[in-house]
């Protein structure tokens, strides 16, 4: 085995991940841990200042309910989320996050995040729930508070977490390795809070050359959360509910400001507005087809119908929107000029704060948005339970938001704890509670952290870690290095070898399977039982070959495990689409053999991998609402 020192860290609460949810968890946990004399440790694969999906910055806070000013009620938010996800929503979780999210936003502002203000000092809204920010340093600011709360001595950066450490059915820590030095890390903990984001590059991206990394979702989140909870034997939910955003084509610049703030339309190559010409289609998806705003996946679907009919390209009518807004200033040339300048700045900031590539693409193609329309397109599928997809672990709701009917099904002791004792989840790691975004993920991290500390207080016994289990994990995790060291000299090109596969080609193989059989871009997001079964056959070969992954160095070792994680996310996805025999989110995926929404599938499709037997067990769980009590 490769020669790695083993370093042990014993703590009470271990936070894995350093993104929005983890930073929320850090500030909250630090407070309660200090009171209770407990220790909190955080591990991130990157540098917290700029890790996770907010690494580049953001131009909006997408969840703000405005409870204090009575702008909206909790019920308003829950209704919006439920409808957007075609009924499949854990309202107890959504309401729990929504009642705390404004708190997180107010903290961000105190910490120094510039939130746009109107003349009266109120927040400027992009849409009903969204606030405009100057968010280039959003993550830096949020991480700063988290680091101050925890103390840098309790933070481990550049450690890639792979597996949970289990003791029977209980999680007692996590293992990982440094990507900077040959050190294998063993974190022993009473509770682990999982916040390692979602997954990208499970499906083949549209761009396949140098632009491979320009997915909408950042290439560094590889399904670590899903893998961790799956391997621990936790029940997972909504594994079929991936997210496909419609964005400016190729560079995936955000469209939110254009649709919501500038009130832009999108039209096809024949100048038709698919939201009007395809309106009749919405009837097929009632009651959700009738709600306002039209659910994201149905908007996608109407657009995709145009694309499939060859009516593309689809354009964002930027020129029309800008001129409509400016028209109000026709009589006032100075005001007009000022307004145009303001709009131009807002439009560019939207890109520069969160998708700089789009600014490069517009500059490289000489786009003047006030003069010419710009193409938009559906991206590839991603797993991001905090945004408009819903995949993640199945977690307990809070006790005080349960009704008599929901409590036996949705509550088991600690809010946002997975079905495995000691594992808490937040952000992309927890499922069935979409539309948390950056702010709600932070709030959920806080909620879960407080509960995790309570769990540590209630379960004070030291984590019982079996040394033999750790040795086995170490050998397995370092194996790709051994394989490379052992075999690479045999062929004159170390990339091509009959005994092993390097992680990049392994990733391409996974992406090809998912793209073609599980409804990726090439398959126009369509799949069927027969397609999925074929995909499963190929995934099984891939899984066998994952034992033959080879890594030349630490960086590549990380790439090996990232792709194993993606593969597990893929399998959970394919199995769950197979299980749900209907089509409910046509703009996310369309099952051609079961093309309609079915009454008896107004239910969660959960799935568990059994660590003892290796079996996958799907399960239907009722959807129960609390909205009439909010």
């Amino acid at each position: 085995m490769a020669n790695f020192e083993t370093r042990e860290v014993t703590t009470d609460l271990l936070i894995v991940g350093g993104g929005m949810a983890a930073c929320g968890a850090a500030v909250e946990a630090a407070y309660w841990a200090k009171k209770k004399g407990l220790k909190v440790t955080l591990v991130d694969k990157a540098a917290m200042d700029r890790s996770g999906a907010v690494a580049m910055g953001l131009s909006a806070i997408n969840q703000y309910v405005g409870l204090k000013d009575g702008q909206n009620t909790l019920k308003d938010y829950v209704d919006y989320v439920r409808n957007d996800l075609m009924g499949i929503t854990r309202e107890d979780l959504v309401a729990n996050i929504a009642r705390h999210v404004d708190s997180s936003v107010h903290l961000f502002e105190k910490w120094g995040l510039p939130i746009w203000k109107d003349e009266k000092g109120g927040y400027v809204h992009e849409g009903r729930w969204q606030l405009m920010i100057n968010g280039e340093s959003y993550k830096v600011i949020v991480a700063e508070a988290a680091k101050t709360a925890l103390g840098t001595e309790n933070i481990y950066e550049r450690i890639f977490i792979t597996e949970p450490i289990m003791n029977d059915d209980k999680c007692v820590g996590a293992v990982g390795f440094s990507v900077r030095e040959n050190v294998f890390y063993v974190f022993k903990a009473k509770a682990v809070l999982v916040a390692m984001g979602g997954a990208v590059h499970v499906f083949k991206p549209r761009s396949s050359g140098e632009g491979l990394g320009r997915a909408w979702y950042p290439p560094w989140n590889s399904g670590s959360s899903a893998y961790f909870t799956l391997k621990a034997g936790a029940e997972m939910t909504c594994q079929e509910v991936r997210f496909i955003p419609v964005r400016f084509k190729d560079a995936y610049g955000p469209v939110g400001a254009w649709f919501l703030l500038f009130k832009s339309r999108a039209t096809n190559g024949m100048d038709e507005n698919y939201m009007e010409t395809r309106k009749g289609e919405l009837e097929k998806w009632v009651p959700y087809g009738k709600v306002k705003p039209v659910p994201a996946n149905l908007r996608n679907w109407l657009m995709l119908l145009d694309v499939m009919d060859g009516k593309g390209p689809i354009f964002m009518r930027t020129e029309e929107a800008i001129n409509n807004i400016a028209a109000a200033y026709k009589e006032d040339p100075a005001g007009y000029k000022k307004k145009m300048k303001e709009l131009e700045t807002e439009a560019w900031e939207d890109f520069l704060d969160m998708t700089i590539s789009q600014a490069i693409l517009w500059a490289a193609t000489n786009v003047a948005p006030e003069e010419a329309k710009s193409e938009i397109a559906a991206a590839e599928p991603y797993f991001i339970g905090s945004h408009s997809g819903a995949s993640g672990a199945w977690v307990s709701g809070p006790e005080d938001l349960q009704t008599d009917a929901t409590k036996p099904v949705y509550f088991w002791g600690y809010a946002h704890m997975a079905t495995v004792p000691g594992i808490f989840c937040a952000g992309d790691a927890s499922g069935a509670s979409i539309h948390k975004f950056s702010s709600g993920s932070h709030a959920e991290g806080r909620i879960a952290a407080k509960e995790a500390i309570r769990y540590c207080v209630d379960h004070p016994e030291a984590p019982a870690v079996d040394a033999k289990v750790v040795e086995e994990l170490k050998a397995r995790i370092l194996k790709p290095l051994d394989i490379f060291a052992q075999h690479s000299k045999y062929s004159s090109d170390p990339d091509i070898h009959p005994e092993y596969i390097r992680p990049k080609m392994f990733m391409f193989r996974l992406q090809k399977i998912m793209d073609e059989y599980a409804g990726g871009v090439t398959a126009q997001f369509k799949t069927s039982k027969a397609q999925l079964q074929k995909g499963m056959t190929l995934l099984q070969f891939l899984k066998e070959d994952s034992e033959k992954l080879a890594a030349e160095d630490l960086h590549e070792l990380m790439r090996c495990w990232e792709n194993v994680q993606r593969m597990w996310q893929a399998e959970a996805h394919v199995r769950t689409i197979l299980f749900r025999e209907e089509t409910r989110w046509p703009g996310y995926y369309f099952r051609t053999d079961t093309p309609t929404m079915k009454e008896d599938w107004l239910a969660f499709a959960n799935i568990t991998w059994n660590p003892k037997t290796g079996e996958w067990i799907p399960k239907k769980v009722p959807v129960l609402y609390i909205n009439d009590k909010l």
Partner: protein
Amino acid sequence: MPSFVIVEKCDGCKALDKTACQHICPNDLMVLNKDLMKAYNREPEMCWECYNCVKICPTQAVEVRGYADFVPLGATVSPLRSSDSIMWTVKFRNGTLKRFKFPIRTTQEGSAVPDGGFATGTDDLKSPVLFSEPASSGMAAIPGLMK
């Protein structure tokens, strides 16, 4: 080549124990060639063009060239980030130049206090009220189910 390093400008962060670009890249892409003492992007096709290496480099040695497989040549987008604002220069393929300046934070670097100055309203670990609440929510109490 997404992010790339201009050889002449990179000084390898003066051989300090970790280089700035390597420290910050969320995808572990930037590395230092120790023989040449120059940094490079080891996997350009896994680069998100997040510009974090560009913003952090003390010698402005890192730039981004748009993904060659779909971006025409000739444009540049360059940031200059200070402690409270960022200035962007956007150069179009046709030569047009645009400059934008945006604030990035309203407080001093390093001054973020975890509770934001909001008083703690509960001592109860079992209560759903978080440590800065209800003050940070702006409400008298955190709402729950109607009785």
